[in-house]
């Protein structure tokens, strides 16, 4: 494939292949298409076996010509995996078990009656079966960056082309000047989705202009998603790898670069593999390499695997790592736009940022600015996890409220527990308490309430989570991941961690809180890179909204959520205890003994815990059938 004409021909052919799934008006050669998620979440719950069985059953029934099985990227609802969607109707099977496949093939595919008992509960209504798109989880979402995830086969470039793939690159190379490309990204108001929210167009403009006549420039993609509990970028790479390649090529044309690097976490084997396949296919199709679309523009992309260092998500550290060194950040200026990778002008954007680019080019900056809030345009993908029913990947327009994300899309908190806070921005972000449940999510609003957008991790905490413990958890993370180059971060975070440990052990004083705050402000102001500058955020935000919990630990020597072990003790209610002795059998520390008190109506004397011997494992409590043991 060398020309736009070739591309258009493939698109026309492929449009029919994907029509059933996209609802596009084109005759399909299949009666049905069965989409099975091949993302990390569903693969972990055995979706590959589901695909195998499905193919075997279809072939045994002679249906392979009429029904196509497609392995796609992530649908988003990871908690319900493995997920299987049947088009054209959009029937949604959740938690699919291999043993269920023969019945689905027979009753649904042959007889035409979906197997209701295997469907996602919410879709089965009195008025028939709801398609996937009308469930509460999907209804409020707007999928732009994720538009192809869970729709196409990520290992087939033709399917991507069938969804307008590489058309933006063609348009840019044949009809636009590099300056025009930069202008339209500037006009779109797109801001970096990796966390900082720097205007993408501005980055590109600097890299184009700051060093005139540079002999070499680089385009890098940050796919080193280190924020624990966040998997937006991984899902894009697994579900739609070509969009990143296309956008990087566009960026290369805009700034005048010939070479791109994708720095991806080695812990994402599926994403790495799909990227390799995609790069290979793009090279064969002439979408990467020399003289793309017959123009003067040449561009190629290589992969570099990270090796598990959170700090490498910072731009200068990432570049130092690609160069083959310890991934330590460099002082800025000089900024990467001037001296980046191998000392050459470089731009670095995050996966999700790139995923927006081709559509901005095709649909125009005005279309993009019509979405979102005044200063944050477009959409944002969140990985919603923790204490929430619908764990998974969610893409919403900027300006959606936290309440909508948690209660409507996320389906609320399990087991009737109460919402306590949402943590965004991972180790760099903060906790948003219930009082800000109605805040409209965008870059500036989140910063105003002491958190940050971050790359999109959103962890929901309920009443059983201790906020001091959460702050300690993140600090532990930062202490481990601090690269050690600058003192405020290396030593300061360690001291903060020690104070938090003191508090959770019940030895804290009120002066420690002042010391903690002072340290926070010092580290924020004096660290070299983003990691250190944001490391105190989890502590500052919990101090701001949950100071009473800190005080309970310090003054009352109590952990209100019952998490911090040193402050807990287990107690047996002597009147509820029937004296069965089950708890004593379970106790690994032989801390439980019989007393001489027998409650009214009971035959045996009750049991009691020797708190001095108790190791607080909770084994007794989980075994007691009478609810006589409690944690205080």
């Amino acid at each position, binding site marked *: 494939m060398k020309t736009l004409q070739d591309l258009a021909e493939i698109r026309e052919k492929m449009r029919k292949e994907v029509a059933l799934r996209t609802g596009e008006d084109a005759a399909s050669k299949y009666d049905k298409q069965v989409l099975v998620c091949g993302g990390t979440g569903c693969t972990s719950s055995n979706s590959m076996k589901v695909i195998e069985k499905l193919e075997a059953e279809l072939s045994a029934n002679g249906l392979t010509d009429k029904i196509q099985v497609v392995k796609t990227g992530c649908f988003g609802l*990871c908690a319900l995996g493995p997920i299987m969607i049947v088009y054209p109707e959009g029937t949604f099977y959740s938690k699919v078990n291999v043993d269920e496949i023969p019945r689905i093939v027979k009753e649904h595919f042959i007889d035409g009656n979906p197997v209701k008992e295997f469907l996602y509960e919410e879709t089965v209504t009195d008025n028939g079966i709801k398609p996937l798109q009308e469930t509460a989880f999907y209804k409020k979402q707007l999928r732009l960056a994720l538009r192809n995830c869970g729709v196409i086969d990520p290992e087939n470039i033709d399917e991507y082309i069938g969804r307008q793939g590489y058309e933006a690159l063609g348009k840019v190379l044949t009809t636009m000047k590099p300056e025009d490309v930069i202008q339209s990204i500037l006009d779109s108001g797109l801001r970096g989705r990796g966390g900082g929210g720097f205007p993408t167009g501005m980055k590109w403009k600097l890299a184009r202009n700051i060093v005139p006549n540079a002999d070499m420039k680089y385009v890098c993609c940050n796919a080193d998603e280190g924020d624990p509990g966040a998997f937006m970028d991984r899902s894009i790479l697994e579900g739609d790898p070509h969009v990143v390649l296309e956008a990087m090529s566009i960026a290369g044309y805009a700034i005048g670069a010939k070479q791109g690097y994708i720095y991806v976490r080695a812990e994402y084997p599926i994403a790495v593999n799909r990227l390799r396949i995609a790069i290979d296919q793009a090279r064969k199709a002439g979408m990467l390499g020399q003289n793309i679309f017959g123009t003067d523009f040449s561009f190629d992309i290589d992969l570099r695997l990270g090796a598990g260092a959170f700090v490498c998500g910072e731009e200068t550290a990432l570049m130092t*790592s690609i160069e083959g060194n310890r991934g330590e950040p460099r002082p800025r200026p000089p900024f990467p736009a001037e001296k980046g990778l191998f000392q050459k002008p470089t731009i670095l954007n995050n996966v999700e940022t790139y995923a927006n680019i081709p559509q901005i080019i095709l649909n125009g900056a005005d279309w993009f600015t019509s979405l979102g809030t005044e200063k944050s345009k477009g959409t944002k993908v969140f990985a919603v996890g923790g204490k929430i029913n619908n764990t998974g990947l969610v893409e919403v327009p900027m300006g959606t409220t936290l309440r909508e994300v948690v209660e409507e899309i996320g389906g609320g908190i399990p087991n009737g527990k109460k919402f306590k806070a949402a943590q965004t921005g991972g180790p760099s972000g903060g906790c948003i308490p219930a009082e800000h449940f109605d805040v409209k999510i965008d870059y500036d609003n989140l910063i105003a309430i002491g958190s940050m957008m971050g790359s999109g991790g959103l962890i929901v905490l309920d009443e059983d989570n201790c906020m001091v413990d959460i702050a300690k958890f993140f600090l532990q993370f930062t202490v481990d991941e601090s690269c050690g180059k600058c003192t405020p971060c290396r030593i300061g975070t360690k001291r903060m961690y020690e104070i938090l440990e003191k508090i959770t052990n019940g030895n804290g004083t009120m002066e420690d809180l002042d010391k903690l705050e002072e340290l926070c402000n010092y580290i924020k102001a004096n660290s070299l890179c983003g990691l250190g500058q944001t490391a105190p955020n989890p502590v500052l935000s919990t101090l701001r909204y949950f100071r009473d919990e800190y005080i309970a630990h310090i003054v009352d020597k109590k952990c209100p959520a019952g998490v911090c072990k040193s402050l807990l003790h287990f107690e047996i209610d002597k009147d509820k205890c029937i004296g069965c002795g089950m708890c004593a059998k379970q106790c690994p520390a032989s801390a439980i003994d019989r007393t001489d008190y027998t409650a009214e109506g009971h035959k045996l004397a009750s049991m009691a815990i020797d708190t001095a011997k108790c190791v607080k494992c909770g084994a007794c409590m989980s075994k007691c059938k009478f609810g006589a043991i409690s944690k205080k």
Partner: protein
Amino acid sequence: MSKKIATIPFQGTPQQEQELLAVIASLKDQQGCLMPIMQKAQDIYGYLPIEVQTIIAEQLNIPLEKVFGVSTFYAQFTLSPKGKYRISVCLGTACYVKGSGRVLELLEEKLGIGVGEITPDGKFSLDDCRCVGACGLAPVFMINDDVYGRLTGKAEEIDEILAKYAD
């Protein structure tokens, strides 16, 4: 982060060394080749003992301390061998708030080893890791490539899983 360094003697074979030299020769001229070479070396040997790092340093004509600096910086590089069954418990945020700390404690108890250690028979090694990306199944741990998720933190559950690796 400090790393545990193996005290057991190095048992590399000439065949492994040949493989490593071939890898080095093929990547040598690439800019920034050190990490890709070390990643391949770890695939070949299972870990990066000082002997292997020395070969890399000599072949690339760079100081050993540079190689050592990189191997100790990144969590993925290990200086001690891993067990036949590598257990890694996810301590990412989503798993942590759902009780993966308890799962790790139980595994430490059952196996009698701590994080970063290996059982004396070389069968199991135990590590914590940041996020395996299966947040929908939290809390999870992995044994080699098998993911065990939706854990409840009960001792019997861990026994059942470990029993599958009795051979």
